[in-house]
């Protein structure tokens, strides 16, 4: 037992002026995201699927060009073909979005984080910015690389496109933006659900299961609902020929996906603020 003597005077530390700031939180979130392997894996898969599948389909198309009839050749969408991998890459980036927050909950890191920086909304905003910028760069890189590689592989005799072809730039840039937004939707779902498996299931369900359910509805209702669904919007963004009747225009579609992301992130932020960590 320690001997009962008069306790020493309380330690008075001199603290730097001001307080912890947003830039400090950005640095911290950047450290967090780059120091786990799941980031490298999901980004790697995003890039490989995004570029690889488009390249594969482009190369196959070129080798079968001679056997395609004139109708097929006319309706052939060169940009969309090279960007087809985007529809696979969206899952990988969505999983990263989920993991960026759900892994903090499942491992308890979130409590260490909030013990160092208790302003939860600001921490979350830093996380959204860091992940958003990273996924934007990865998604746009993937989309542009997929486009150029795909067009190179198509080359002659097949029809191929350049960025100045009608709709091509929009498809390429919009495709990247679409993937980035789906990543943020994943982050929003992860924040709301907090469990990795649950949030990934929800993310996959939105993209794969909802369309199947809607397909079972009467066709007029189905069509009205379908055009609001992210999977349909994604396809429309990539397409440069023969837009589906009843769809939103690609830019409006992208705006709608942005709104989904913002709404989910806002719900997530408010729950993060209110719930016990």
């Amino acid at each position: 037992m320690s001997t009962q003597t008069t306790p020493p005077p309380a330690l008075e530390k001199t603290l730097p002026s001001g307080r912890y700031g947003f830039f400090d939180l950005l640095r911290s979130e950047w450290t967090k995201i780059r120091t786990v392997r799941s980031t490298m894996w999901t980004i790697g898969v995003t890039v490989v699927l995004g570029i690889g599948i488009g390249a594969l389909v482009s190369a196959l198309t070129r080798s079968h060009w001679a056997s395609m009839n004139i109708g097929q050749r006319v309706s052939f969408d060169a940009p969309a073909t090279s960007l087809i991998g985007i529809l696979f890459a969206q899952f990988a980036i969505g999983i990263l979005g989920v993991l960026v927050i759900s892994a903090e909950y499942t491992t308890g890191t979130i409590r260490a984080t909030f013990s160092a920086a208790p302003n939860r909304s600001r921490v979350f905003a830093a996380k959204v910015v860091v992940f958003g910028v990273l996924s934007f760069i990865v998604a746009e890189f993937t989309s542009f690389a997929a486009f150029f590689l795909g067009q190179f592989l198509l080359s002659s005799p097949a029809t191929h496109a350049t960025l100045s072809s009608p709709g091509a730039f929009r498809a390429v840039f919009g495709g990247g933006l679409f993937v980035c937004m789906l990543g943020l939707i994943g982050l929003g779902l992860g924040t709301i659900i907090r469990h990795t498996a649950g949030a990934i299931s929800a993310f996959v369900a939105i993209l794969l299961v909802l369309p199947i359910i809607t397909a079972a509805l009467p066709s007029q209702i189905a069509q009205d609902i379908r055009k609001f669904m992210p999977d349909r919007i994604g396809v429309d963004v990539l397409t440069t020929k023969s837009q589906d009747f009843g769809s939103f225009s690609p830019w409006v579609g992208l705006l709608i996906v942005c709104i989904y992301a913002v709404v989910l992130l806002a719900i997530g932020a408010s729950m993060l603020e209110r719930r016990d960590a």
Partner: protein
Amino acid sequence: MIEAKGLTKHYGDKHAVEQLSFTVRPGVVTGFLGPNGSGKSTTMRMIMGLDAPTAGDATVKGKHFKNLQWPLREVGALLEAKAIHPGRSARAHLTMLAQTNHLPNSRVDELLELVGLTSVANKRAGKFSLGMGQRLGIAAALLGDPEILLFDEPVNGLDPDGIRWVRNLLKGLAREGRTVFVSSHLMSEMALTADEVVIIGRGKLISQTSIEDLLSQSTENFVRVRSPEAAKLKAALEHQGAVVALEDDGSLSVRGANEAAIGELAATIPVVLHELAPQSASLEEAFMELTEDSIEYHGTTTSAGPTNSTGAKS
């Protein structure tokens, strides 16, 4: 300084913490004792602003934790062992925490050195033992060199060497004038480490006292006396107001007089003494006595007599 005022946390019908008020002052190690499930961790999480109280208030340095300007530099906490991403290295974990409060990277290296994790700093924390996880948690708590420290069960999973290290660390931190609040279910450990204790049971405050008072207040404290003239001594002691019981083995159990008083009295009578031995309750027993009514899940208890020992003095 940590203050809880009427701190209350309900989870539905379950009252985890109920009207809890206490003060933890700087310069001493304050133990936070209570049986399992008595609300210690919940209380610490409320102090750290992680859980919102249903009612009442917890403050550090007179402020809500959320309003601190440099939280990590003002308050350090080890709340759970291995609250770290298994894929992240110890260095990366500390770095990301340091950055939130604008602490230099050199501070991370200093702490890794202090807790003895330098050699495994770049290994994935998932491979860490519980003890290494605790050391990393302690490093995180000390990262900002804070004046106020909270540790929830810091010696869990540590080997005897590690336990001694933590004990000395906590005492050293208190000696520097810091506020040190440490929970443990190891009462004997608290006896060696803490100067004061806050004891809770079922979420309610049972006692806030110094370890010494806790032991001396215990009714289990008495002096065992053997004498060939036991009856004479017994009468004399009772005359002085002590409570004396004649045990089966012929010894006397004296309460209400210490060994010095008994010895002096024996000399004045005079009677010969064969034994004069203060029996102090261990902290464990004092604690059991206090929390008897508040333990949620009772085992069958047989009342064990007081021991010689002294968790408090070994």
